[in-house]
Each structure stands twice: as structure tokens, then as C-alpha cells.
């Protein structure tokens, strides 16, 4: 019974959203292509679902690829919106004439498997782990097992931010396992008790354990207050100012409804 009530409330909310923020999409038609940052995907999916349910003539295609790919692809005109989990560099902005829209703030947390007793690290320890100088959990108070390092490929904005702000641009050892997205990183850590990786705070839930870094636990709250420093903006970029459906999509992201979705998916709204 309880479930049904909760469901009804959710449905009511959804219905409410349909009536309010989505009116702009009436009469629109066509394909909206989105690619890039994988941290953005849950929000993108939810927004897309609402828009496509409201107006089936619109098709929204969401692909990953990482922030680098998002910026590049929108610049090349391959997609309408290119997401990035880092601010596009000045050269990128200049080269492609990008317009940047920041719609949420996100932290990047180091994560381990919940069964791992090691739940606190200093910044130095984290750098040593990733550089390969500490290679066994035993040295950190855990089991006598090798540390399985997971990292992302160069296209990742999450990696860029983590590397810059948590690893202080330190080395990442070549032995590290490579995964292609936030989701992939999370499932890798879930399945491997001796893994360490890093994901968007929005992806953290009970199946993985975020590592307390220098005494600060990465949560929505600590990121919002600025206590947890490994944070970044989530951007949606367009080539030139946003136009057409892309503009309406970004407007919706920045509307109260859109911001509510961002918050619901574990990010900090900008408004």
C-alpha cells in the first residue's frame, strides 16, 4: 500500500512537471544529439524521458564518450550538445566557438568496496596509491591484498578533475585497469573488494564506499560548502549560443524542474 502511495506521489509530480516546464517543447520536432561526460547521463536520461513522453516527435539520443569527446564532437558539429565534467579550455572555446552552460556542481570521490576496512586516506596516501608507491592494502591497515587501481581514459573529465585536484597532477601507474565511464568504474569497484577508483559523487550509493580524504568525507553537503575540494562544474556545451531544441533543453535543465532532477540524481544545483 505504501508503495502505491509513493508511486502515486511520484506520478503526480511527474504529471505536474509535464504541465509546467515542458510547454516550450510543444510543436517542436526533430533529433537532439547529446554526447560526452558520463556523470551527466542519469540527468540527461531523465530529462530526455520527460521531454520525449511529452512530445514523441522529439528524439533525444544520449551517448557517453567522456568530456573530451563531448567537447570535440559538439565542436565538430557531430552532436548538438556536448557535455563535459570540466570547464572547456580557452583554446577549445576559441577554436570551436563554444558556449558553456554550467547546470550543476559535482564532487569527484575516491571509492572503495564497502567490505574494505580502509575508509580514510590522506591526500599523500592517495597519490602514492595511484603512483604505485603503495601497492598493498596491508600498508594502509587493510587485508594483505594488492591494491587494484582503476582509472579512466584521457577523455574523461572526472579523471581530469581527480588528477588535478586530488592527485595534484601526480603520476598514474600504467598497471591501472582502464574503464570507460562513471558507471563502469562503479560496477568495477562493486565487484572487486580490493579495488580503488574514483567517481562522481552523484554516482555514490550504498554499493560503494567513498573514501574520506584528509578528514573530509565527500558528500553533497561537503561539496556544497566547499569543504571537499575535489569538485567541478557539470557543463553542457553548444557550438555558438544554443538554438532550437538544444536551447530549450538547456533552459529546461536550468529551470526549477531540471534543477530538481539534478538534485535528485545526486548533484548540487546551481540555482
Amino acid at each position, binding site marked *: 500500500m505504501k508503495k502505491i502511495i509513493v508511486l502515486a506521489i511520484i506520478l503526480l509530480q511527474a504529471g505536474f512537471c509535464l504541465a509546467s516546464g515542458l510547454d516550450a517543447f510543444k510543436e517542436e520536432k526533430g533529433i537532439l544529439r547529446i554526447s560526452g561526460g558520463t556523470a551527466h547521463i542519469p540527468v540527461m536520461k531523465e530529462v530526455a524521458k520527460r521531454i520525449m513522453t511529452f512530445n514523441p516527435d522529439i528524439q533525444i539520443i544520449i551517448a557517453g*564518450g567522456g568530456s573530451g*569527446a563531448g567537447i*570535440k564532437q559538439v565542436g565538430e558539429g557531430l552532436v548538438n550538445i556536448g557535455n563535459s565534467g570540466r570547464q572547456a579550455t580557452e583554446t577549445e572555446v576559441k577554436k570551436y566557438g563554444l558556449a558553456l552552460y554550467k547546470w550543476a556542481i559535482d564532487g569527484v570521490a575516491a571509492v572503495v568496496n564497502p567490505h574494505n576496512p580502509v575508509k580514510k586516506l590522506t591526500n599523500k596516501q592517495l597519490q602514492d596509491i595511484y603512483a604505485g608507491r603503495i601497492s598493498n592494502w596491508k600498508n594502509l591497515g587493510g587485508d594483505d591484498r594488492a591494491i587494484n587501481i582503476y582509472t579512466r*581514459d584521457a577523455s574523461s573529465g572526472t579523471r581530469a578533475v581527480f588528477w588535478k585536484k586530488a592527485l595534484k597532477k601526480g603520476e598514474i601507474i*600504467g*598497471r591501472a585497469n*582502464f574503464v570507460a565511464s562513471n558507471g563502469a568504474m562503479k560496477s568495477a569497484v562493486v*565487484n*572487486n573488494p580490493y579495488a580503488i577508483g574514483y567517481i562522481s559523487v552523484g554516482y555514490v550509493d550504498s554499493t560503494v564506499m567513498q573514501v574520506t580524504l584528509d578528514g573530509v568525507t565527500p558528500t553533497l553537503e561537503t561539496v556544497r560548502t566547499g569543504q571537499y575540494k575535489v569538485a567541478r562544474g557539470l557543463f553542457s556545451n553548444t557550438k555558438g549560443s544554443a538554438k532550437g531544441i538544444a536551447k530549450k533543453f538547456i533552459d529546461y535543465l536550468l529551470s526549477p524542474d531540471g534543477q530538481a532532477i539534478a538534485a535528485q540524481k545526486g548533484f548540487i544545483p546551481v540555482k
Partner: protein
Amino acid sequence: MRFAVKENLAQLFFSGAAVLSGAATLLILGFMILLSLPVLESGLLMNILTDPWSPGHGQFGILAMIVGTLYIAGLSLLIGFPISLGCSFFIQITSPHGPGKLLKKLVQFMTAIPTVIYGFVGVFLLVPVVRQVFSYGSGMSILTASLMLGILICPTMILFFSQSFARVPKNFLLAADALGGTPFQKLIYVIIPHAWPGLLTGLILGFGRAMGDTLIALMISGNSVMLPSSILDSARTLTAHIAMIIAADFDSIEFKTIFICGSVLYLLTSCGILAARILDRRQQG
């Protein structure tokens, strides 16, 4: 006269189609080489073939991937070859009726199992097992990928082996039987000497299949870019490398190197096919 026009048109259509099929092969090669050219011209080829992969330091070497590919394909062959040999003995020699026929059906069915299924089962069944058993690493390793690939390439080899056993002239076998040879003697003195080019061909095709597979390596080999030092290390194959780097910046050197990977894969497999062809002719002729 209308007859002749129709005939000629048809022949034109058929030959056009054949030219198209042949052209496809060359076109792919052409594209790979063409897109590798910028790297080749910049004189970086040697660096790319020998450097480590570390884009942060401006190093884009694919040596680790080449080694990873050969390592994984080689090990999977080591696993798959004896099994395939045993199974083809089973099908052709030990019990050609009943059980052998059933096994052959199963092997043919195996060719229809999607590779992504092997990968999926690998991720959720084999990887944890390997991690537990060896208490080392993430469980995503050369060994894990090779085990799965070893099973994947079995049907290719088994079907080829049993075909080349079957091609051994019947009267030779009869002669061996008439002289009182045991099945083992028949195998050693008649079948193997006749079928070895076929065995080698099957081996080459199996190797090509293992080398060309993307999904299993991508999903369960861990994709790290170090030169592997043990079979429990994780490694990245050329195919997985292409799949991972495809999203990178088109103008970057790292993106351009995937065409080198493509060319290397293309050339390696074509050499395999050429060798297989020569061997095949040898057995037939």
C-alpha cells in the same frame, strides 16, 4: 539479339558485384593506410611501435597493445588447441557415430553463440573466480581473457581439424585397418602425416579469430597499458584499444594511432589468411 543484351547485362551485374566485394577488401586496407599516413609521415612510426602508452607525457606507443594482443591470442591458442585436437579426435576417430555426431552439432551451435555473451559471463562468473583462486589483482587478466577466448576459438579449430581429418583418403585408412593398425597407429602414421597442413591452417585461423575478437578482451582483460609481465596481469589488446580510443579528439595523435592499430591488425590477419591458403593448397594438392 535481345538475348545477348540480357546475358551481357547479367554478366556485368555479377562481375560488378564481385568487383565490389573485392574492392571492399582493398578499400578498407586503403583507408587504414591512408589514415595512418599522417603518423607515418611525421616519422613517429618507430616511436609508436616501441614507446609506452602515456598520453600525459606525449608518448603514444602501442607496443604494449601489440604484446598484449599476441600474449592473449597465444595463450588462448595454448588453451584451445589441445581441447580442439581432442574434440576433433573424438568426432572423427574415437567415436565418429553417436556421441561424435552430437559433439559436432554442439560445436556448430557454439559458432552461433554471440561473443558478447562470452564476455558477459566472463565478467560475472570467470573474473570473480580468477580473483578468488589466485588472490591476485582484479581478476581481469590475460589469463581470464585467454580462458574465455580459448573456448571461443574452439569451434573454428575443431571444425577445421575434423574436416582435414575427413579429407584423408579413405583407401589409406582402409589399408591401415587391413594391416591390423590400432586407431592410435592409424592416427600417428596415416592421419597426422596427411592432415598436418590442415592442423596448421586451423591453428592459424584460430589465432586470427582470437586476435580479431574485441568484446572478450575489452570486457575481461582489464585494459591496462603496461607491458604485461605475468599471465595474471591485466593487458590491453589492439582491438580493445581501438574501441577505447575511438572517442578521443580526432586531431590528437592518440586518435591517429588507432589507425596504425587497425593497419597492424589488418596486415597480421591477411598474412594469416595467405599462409592458411598456401597450406590448404598443399593438403589438397
